Every structure is written in structure tokens, then in C-alpha cells.
């Protein structure tokens, strides 16, 4: 497969090798993160006038889904500030490679808690409380603060980026869809690594990955630490065709299927709540603790844990029967989870176009008055218009859903022996795409 190795350009290599560009970006995002927390706590309670709401849920959340992931895989993780304070302590310095200089117990993450299960659970929680979190600056700030403190605390107990690897819902989201992304970090020449005894790259990796064994971009946070410590300049940062981690031979775990299904369910439910014309559903999702909310939560959980997994298991079971090999259902569930990756990615992109394009007008007013205290720092307009969905945005949403169906069907076909075997998975994707089509443009 075609790859374009960025490290072959001396300029790009210098940029990636130096700790400074990435450090500066992370220092800025850290300051921004802390400012966001303060803005959420101290600023206007009116969401459209609070930096925390608009920058987290409109600007950043949109940028993640429309730019960082589709064009850079886990590129957000490489500049995410959340692990920064913990790593300062872990590494005994902020510009240091991983080493034994710092403090922390450095325990290994318990085996039973590995995988993306907790991340998927976290994403479900975001969905269950989403209507409140998305609209309340204070709750948003508290969630961000909680995440920052949790990451710091965990980094003192456990080794490396345990929080990112096993807990962060956004890490799970980015990791899952990074498999479809066009960026990967791989070794150039496996023989060089095999002959290298110290494994400095593994020691340096905050994610606990060994680059030689890296087959999927899901777990690599693109932090470039291995590239910096490799004595042989044997690490490549490749631009690659989209979807390169998805194919007949790649390895996948069953928790990826669960994570993928939770993401699909979240996209479905978020579309229904935030874009649909059903006011009672909105109120039910918002009034946490009310009887209506329990109904909503039940319906959400049944969709995420019952209906969608049921359909997926059914489709996989049928695919399994149509196949010649007698793979176990569990194995097939993991294998076909790849179909959920492009489907989910494109569905989230379509949802984001529908959701965020209307609300971009809110961004400038909070730039000029981030706390909603009546400032006008940049002399811009102080209140946003209503916003509207344009016909361009609608066509774009349909196009994204179409690409998603094409892509997931293609993956289904590529990882199946026959068309017949892929058909149930394609039917699953079609059904889901149609549901989204109805929610977004119906």
C-alpha cells in the first residue's frame, strides 16, 4: 500500500523531533483548558455566552470530528493537555522523556480493566447526561475539572497514560476512528528493531506501545516520543490511504465492537434529541432524575446495549453461517467490528455538520466576550444570529452518510469471503444509515 513517510522530509522530521512545537501547543491547550474550566464556573450561565460551552461543544468537538480524526487519526491526543500535569510529575520534568526521575507508584493497570470497555461506558454516560452537560457551562466545567484531576491522580498511581488508554471516552472515540484515519506511526525497517536490545522506544512510550508490534493506529497517540529516542531513526510517520487498519488480516478485539456500537447508538440518540422536533424527548433527556429521564435513559440503554448490539450480533451470526470457516461467534464479532468504524466515523461527521454548522455563529461572540460579562475585547458582534441549516449542509450530510455506507460495505466485503457473507453486515449498515438519514434530513 502506498505510504508517504513524513520523516523523509528533513523539515518535517525536525518539527516532529523537537519537543518544542508540540510542547508549546500543549502548553497553550493546557492554559486554554484551565481557562475553559474557570469560564464555565465563573462565566455567564447562559450557554451561548459562555466560552466553556461554545468552545468545548461547538468549536473543539466539531474540530475533533471534522478535522483532527478524519485527517489526523489520534492527532488530538498528541496535543491534548489532560495528561500533561501528571506526566510532569511522572517524568520529573515537562520536557523530559519518560524516565525514573519522577514520582508516582507506577503500577500496571489491572488486567481486568483493560480494553475499551470503560471508555465505552464513559461515552454512554456522556450520552445519558449529555443534554445537561451540553447546555450547562458549570456542569461542563466540573466534568473537565474532574477529568483533569482524575488523570493527575491516576498518573500518580498507575504507569504511563493509563487514564488515556483505558478511561478517557474521547481517547476511545479517537482511537476507534483513528483506524480509519490517514496517519500512522510505524517502524521503517523491522530488522533494525529486532537487533536493537534496549527497546528505548518502548521505555519512552507513554502509551505503553512497542512500535515494532504496532499494527493499528488505535492505540498510538502520535506523541512522537519513540521517534525522538530511536537511535537509528527507524520510526516513520506515514500518510496513508484512509481505512488502512481495516482489512481481512488486521487484528480486532470484541471490545472494539462494543465501543463501535456505543458510538453508533450515541450518534443516533444525540441526533434524535438535539436535531429532532420532539420537545418531550429533549426535556426528558434534560431533567435528570425525573421519571421521564429514567424512561429516556432506559430507551437509550436499550438502544445502545440491546437493539443495536442485537442487530449486530444477528448480522454477524448470519455472516458466520454463510462463511466456510467455522469461526466462533465471539471471534466474528471482533472481526466484523471493523465495519462499524467507517460507518460510525461518517455518521458522526454527518451529525456534526448538521449540529455545528448552524451554531458556528456563537463562536465569535464568546471570543470577544468569553465569560459573558458584557466585554467586547475584539469589537465584534455581541450576539449570535439564530443560524440555519442550508441546502448545502443538507446535501453534504447526505453525501457523508453515503460515503459511510459505501465505505463500511466495502470493508464488509473485503473482510468476508463472499458477497453472501458480507450481505448481513451491509444490511446492518444500510439500516443504520437509513435511520440516520431519516433523523438528519427526514
Amino acid at each position, binding site marked *: 500500500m502506498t505510504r508517504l*513517510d513524513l520523516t*523523509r522530509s*528533513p523539515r518535517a522530521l525536525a518539527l516532529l523531533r523537537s519537543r518544542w512545537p508540540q510542547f508549546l501547543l500543549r502548553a497553550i491547550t493546557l492554559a486554554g483548558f484551565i481557562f475553559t474550566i474557570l469560564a464555565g464556573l465563573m462565566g455567564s450561565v447562559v450557554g451561548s455566552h459562555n466560552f466553556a460551552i461554545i468552545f468545548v461543544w461547538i468549536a473543539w468537538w466539531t474540530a475533533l470530528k471534522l478535522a483532527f480524526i478524519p485527517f489526523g487519526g489520534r492527532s488530538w491526543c498528541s496535543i491534548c493537555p489532560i495528561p500533561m500535569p501528571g506526566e510532569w510529575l511522572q517524568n520529573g520534568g515537562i520536557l523530559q522523556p519518560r524516565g525514573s526521575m519522577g514520582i508516582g507508584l507506577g503500577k500496571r493497570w489491572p488486567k481486568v480493566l483493560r480494553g475499551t470497555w470503560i471508555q465505552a461506558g464513559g461515552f454512554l454516560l456522556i450520552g445519558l447526561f449529555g443534554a445537561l452537560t451540553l447546555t450547562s457551562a458549570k456542569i461542563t466545567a466540573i466534568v473537565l475539572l474532574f477529568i483533569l484531576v482524575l488523570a493527575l491522580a491516576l498518573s500518580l498511581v498507575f504507569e504511563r497514560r493509563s487514564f488515556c488508554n483505558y478511561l478517557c471516552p474521547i481517547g476511545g472515540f479517537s482511537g476507534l476512528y483513528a483506524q480509519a484515519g490517514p496517519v500512522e506511526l510505524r517502524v521503517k525497517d523491522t530488522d533494525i528493531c529486532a537487533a536493537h536490545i534496549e527497546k528505548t522506544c518502548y521505555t519512552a512510550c507513554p502509551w505503553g506501545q512497542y512500535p515494532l508490534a504496532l499494527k493499528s493506529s488505535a492505540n498510538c497517540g502520535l506523541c512522537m516520543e519513540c521517534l525522538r529516542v530511536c537511535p537509528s531513526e527507524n520510526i516513520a510517520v506515514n500518510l496513508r490511504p484512509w481505512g488502512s487498519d481495516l482489512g481481512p488480516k488486521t487484528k480486532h478485539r470484541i471490545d472494539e465492537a462494543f465501543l463501535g456500537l456505543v458510538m453508533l447508538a450515541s450518534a443516533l440518540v444525540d441526533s434524535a434529541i438535539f436535531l429532532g*422536533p420532539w420537545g418531550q424527548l429533549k426535556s426528558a433527556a434534560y431533567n435528570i432524575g425525573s421519571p421521564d429521564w429514567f424512561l429516556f435513559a432506559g430507551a437509550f440503554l436499550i438502544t445502545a446495549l440491546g437493539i443495536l448490539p442485537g442487530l449486530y450480533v444477528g448480522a454477524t451470526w448470519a455472516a458466520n453461517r454463510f462463511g466456510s470457516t467455522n469461526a466462533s461467534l465471539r471471534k466474528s464479532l471482533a472481526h466484523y467490528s471493523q465495519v462499524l468504524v467507517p460507518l460510525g466515523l461518517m455518521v458522526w461527521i454527518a451529525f456534526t455538520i448538521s449540529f455545528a454548522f448552524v451554531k458556528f455563529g456563537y463562536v465569535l461572540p464568546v471570543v470577544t466576550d468569553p465569560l459573558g460579562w458584557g466585554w467586547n475585547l475584539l469589537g465584534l458582534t455581541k450576539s449570535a444570529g439564530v443560524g440555519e441549516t442550508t*441546502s448545502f449542509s443538507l446535501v453534504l450530510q447526505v*453525501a457523508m452518510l453515503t460515503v459511510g455506507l459505501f465505505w463500511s460495505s466495502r470493508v464488509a466485503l473485503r473482510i468476508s469471503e463472499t458477497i453472501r457473507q458480507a450481505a448481513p453486515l451491509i444490511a446492518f449498515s444500510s439500516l443504520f444509515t437509513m435511520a440516520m438519514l431519516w433523523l438528519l*434530513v*427526514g
Partner: protein
Amino acid sequence: MPMESLPYKTTPTNWKRWAWVIPYAGLALLILFIPLPLPFHAPQDRLLRIEASSFQFTPGEIQINPGDRVTIELVSTDVVHGFSLDAYGFELKADPGQTATGTFIADQAGVFRFRCSVACGNLHPFMIGKLQIGPNLLFFRGIALGLLAISAALISVRNVSRGTT
């Protein structure tokens, strides 16, 4: 060791494998944009009384025909709300007890969201209703595109399996 310039390729792309993309893209554009005749309904005057409360419109889903002369009566039942119809630039604002009325001609077909245009609380940005004017062609175009996408996937994989992968 690093080479001096980009790009660097390990294997050349076999572009012929992707030749089918061109007719398919053309077909996709055709499905998306080809003008379709709409069933004709004699335009009529419609009076729509829409009640706005936090955070919903009642009725929230409305169907009318293209060409209809629509009069909206916006009645707010709890706090000040607005009504802004996508693509039409049509807006009303109403205090409780003061019905706002406005008229427009439904000269664009499709499904349009209408949204509250006066901040009315936390869920205000999501206070949305749906006005369908004529059949929802985009939805049907979307379904046709979906079928096209599946057939494109079949073709792309068939061609791939003949190739080197």
C-alpha cells in the same frame, strides 16, 4: 539517511482499478441534483397556529404543499419565544398573551427546520420543529444514493480482489 524530498512511494498506485469511480460519481451527482417533477397541488391558504413552550413547538411536525400561502400564528405559552424558518428568512417573536402573525408563500420545496429565535433557557438551541413542503425528495435521493453506494462497494472490491491485495 533521510532522503531529501517528498514524495516517497513504496508501490505505485494502480489508478485503473479506480476507473469505475468516474461514472459512479457522475451518477451520484445526477441522483443528488437532477430536477424531479413535484406532484401538483392547487395552492391553498393555510392558517397554522403553532404553540411555543419551553422547549417545543406544538405541532412540531407540519406538512404542507409547495405554493401554499401560509399564515403562522405563533402563540407563546410560558416565556418569550421566537419562530425562525430555515431558508425562508421568516421570523416571528411572541410574548405570552401576544400572538404574533406572519405570512409567507411556500415557494421552496423540501424539509425545513424552524427554530426558536429568542433565547428561552438551556435547551433553547435545540428547540426545533420541522416543516415539510411537498415530498421529501432529499430523503429519497439519499436512499437511492445508498443503493448506489452498496453497488459501488461491490464493484470496488471485485476490482481489488483481481488486483494485488
